[in-house]
């Protein structure tokens, strides 16, 4: 009997919660492989969840590989910040610099953060938890991880999973809202491509100035905006190709793997299987919807005030979720008029949303951290 207990120890000590969480991990792996929903993140997260929930698993706990990764890079915010260097190195702010007014749309696309925050408060979350859930509305994975880990680390797992899962669902969540709020006539508004070349000097000065201005205004955003703009400065400088290549490929890939595994490891049954997780799932989709609606309505307003032509669909790209949201805008506009190419305008709003969501993350931290 003792021998049996030793051999089948794992099976005997398996809890229902663990079995369920292994199921959740497998579901994430399925979504990554079959549906290709953000596979680069959801696959490692799913694998981490399975590994961490196998009974008696040595991967979590003292000297467990996943716990080491968590301590090394998630608990101290290292991994999301390193990913930001890579994002900065990959992002072309050209479409935004050619159309600086798109910054307004990027700001409007962050409205869901605060709307969701209030709703979460009403549902009984405390202020730090509510702010962490609201930050899902930044629609930016690393920002969500960074902020929620500082404010409410016990919610990190559900928030990261919700943020990344819904991000891959942007093409499904956004179009119905776009069609509901923007009339057919408005969706047909053509915006000619405006060629407005940006000088190399502007492209180089932009990341430096943004870092300094945002840094002075919102000090809590310095790590996020600083890393993002460092990556972009390296890219635009043109003199450190090796560093740019490493940032956007090797470093980003390695860190993404580590980050995914470590996040997956936080999804242990005793922390994840709670009513809170379900509520976060619901609040997350609410945040995405609210962001989209706010961006669309603000763009509609801008079109009315400026007398256009500004196709209000562009507002949906202000939510960050780069570059999916911009592509969704292009697709929905083309359903109405295949000769209308909004992609570059939408990319401008989209990169503006990227910057705005980082700033919003800093604002949320400034408001709530240390309470």
């Amino acid at each position, binding site marked *: 009997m003792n021998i049996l207990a030793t051999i089948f120890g794992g099976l005997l000590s398996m809890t229902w919660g663990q079995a369920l969480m292994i199921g959740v991990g497998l579901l994430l792996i399925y979504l990554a492989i079959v549906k290709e929903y953000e596979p680069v993140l959801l696959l490692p997260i799913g694998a981490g969840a399975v590994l961490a929930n196998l009974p008696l698993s040595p991967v979590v706990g003292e000297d467990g590989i996943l716990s080491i990764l968590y301590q090394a890079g998630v608990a101290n915010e290292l991994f999301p910040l390193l990913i930001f260097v890579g994002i900065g190195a990959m992002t072309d702010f050209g479409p935004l610099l050619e159309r600086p007014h798109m910054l307004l749309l990027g700001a409007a696309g962050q409205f869901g953060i605060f709307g969701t925050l209030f709703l979460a408060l009403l549902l009984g979350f405390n202020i730090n938890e509510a702010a962490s859930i609201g930050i899902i509305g930044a629609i930016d994975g690393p920002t969500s991880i960074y902020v929620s880990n500082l404010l409410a680390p016990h919610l990190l797992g559900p928030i990261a999973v919700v943020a990344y899962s819904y991000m891959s669902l942007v093409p499904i969540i956004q179009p119905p809202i776009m069609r509901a709020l923007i009339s057919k006539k408005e969706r047909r508004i053509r915006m000619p491509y405006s060629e407005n070349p940006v000088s190399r000097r502007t492209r180089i000065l932009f990341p430096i100035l943004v870092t300094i201005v945002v840094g002075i205004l919102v000090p809590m955003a310095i790590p996020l905006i600083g890393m993002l703009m460092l990556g972009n400065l390296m890219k635009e400088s043109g003199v450190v190709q090796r560093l740019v290549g490493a940032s956007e490929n090797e470093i980003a890939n390695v860190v993404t793997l580590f980050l995914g595994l470590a996040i997956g490891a936080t999804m242990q049954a005793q922390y994840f299987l709670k009513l809170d997780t379900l509520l976060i799932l619901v609040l997350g989709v609410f945040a995405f919807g609210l962001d989209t609606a706010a961006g669309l309505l603000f763009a509609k307003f801008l079109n009315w005030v400026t007398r256009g032509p500004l196709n209000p669909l562009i507002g949906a790209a202000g939510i960050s979720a780069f*570059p999916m949201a911009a592509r969704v805008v292009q697709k929905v506009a083309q359903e109405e008029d295949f000769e209308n190419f909004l*992609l570059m305008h939408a990319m401008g709003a989209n990169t503006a949303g990227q910057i705005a969501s980082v700033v919003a993350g800093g604002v949320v931290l400034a408001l709530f951290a240390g309470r």
Partner: protein
Amino acid sequence: MKSYTITIGDKTHIIGLQELDNPDRFRVLAGGQVYEIKVVAVEESDAEIPSIEVIQAAKDQPALAHKAPELLPKAPSSRPPDLPEPEAAEELPAEVRAPMPGVILEVSVTPGTPVQRGDQLFVLEAMKMKNPIRSPRDGVVAEVFVHEGQNVNYDDLLLRYREG
């Protein structure tokens, strides 16, 4: 110009047909050549096929004045003739230009391809997104100015339609 597929024997031809102002005049595109034709009713007992008179044929092409089937030359010529601008031009765009900068991933038409409004002409990759560029009008492709893998800038000429 509307295009029709005609099967004669076991050969399939695609012809383009456009009504002109005069009710018995048509502009026909067949085998890479454009003809202006006049339809004349003839009183023959065995057939109701009207005879066709070619009013204006392309250069270096003997005027055809036969019945309908012979109108179609067998081998399409590779280069279309230069045709005069239409007098009663509708506001159809004569060309297609790049709507934004990017890379041409796919060229879906060749000179001589009849296209309808909405048909895909190119796939343009911009910001890592594949964008179909569709035909803004019915017509026939005269010339394609880009090849697959080519970088294009905003407003670069991609394609010209054949006159008609």
